[in-house]
């Protein structure tokens, strides 16, 4: 009875994206902490997470089981370094990414909350 809400695509995707946002916050914290570490390469959430998630929603990819898709961190070696020590962190773009990430997380918590509220309304019949 309750399953449809917890298994709905929206709810599942929001949960997965929240995991990713939490991990991205970890990566950004590491990047800003190491903004002056020689040779440090910035971390980011692996881009194959988003593509896997998308293809699982569309039902086109190899992974149809959404629960098995987990975000992971990778070193970003593509961003060019503007410094002689090889470090490719730019504090301002990290801060920007962090704020964006926080807003995204806030939004996702709203989505999850909304799903739970819907369920509560269905159970109690009270639209509050």
């Amino acid at each position, binding site marked *: 009875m309750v399953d449809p809400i917890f298994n709905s695509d929206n709810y599942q995707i929001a949960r997965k994206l*929240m995991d990713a*946002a*939490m*991990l991205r*916050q*970890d*990566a*950004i*914290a*590491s990047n*800003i*902490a*190491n*903004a*002056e*570490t020689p040779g*440090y390469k910035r*971390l980011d959430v*692996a881009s194959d997470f988003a593509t896997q998630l998308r293809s699982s929603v569309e039902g086109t990819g190899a992974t149809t089981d959404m629960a098995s898709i987990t975000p*992971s*961190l*990778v*070193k970003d070696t593509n961003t060019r370094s503007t410094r002689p020590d090889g470090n490719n962190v730019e*504090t301002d773009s*990290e*801060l920007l990414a*962090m*704020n964006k*990430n*926080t807003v995204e*997380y*806030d939004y996702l*918590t709203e989505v*999850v*909350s909304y799903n*739970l*509220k819907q369920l509560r309304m269905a159970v109690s019949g009270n639209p509050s």
Partner: protein
Amino acid sequence: MNLISGIDVTAGALNAQKTRLDIVAQNIANAQTTRGPDGLPYQRKTVSFETELLRQAGSPGNAASVQSVRVGSIQNDTTPGQRVYDPSHPDADSNGYVTMPNVNMAYEMVDMMTASRAYEANLSVVKNAKQMAMKALEIGK
């Protein structure tokens, strides 16, 4: 998993930057100290950071790891200080020259700005991480 993600990484960085600010303060305070405890002019101190591996985040093949920083060492800058002719100075040598500390105000001010900006950046990471944790606690309310 921490409730406030990345807080351990940031804590290390905050600590390191604060030590750096302390050292800058010490350098500026001693910019005119011609006689230290060892009887020699003050030597400028420099801080170097080192990486602290906290945890392996990626798959084993891909070595993406969350790193924090900590103060590696505090060393003396051994470049010779400026020699100023001032025979009336109590620390003047037999030729009337005083060796001043090798503190360069411009370097120190730039270092101070860099350290405090880095500190601020890390603080805003803490703020955002906290906001995320608070939002997570509000789920379902």
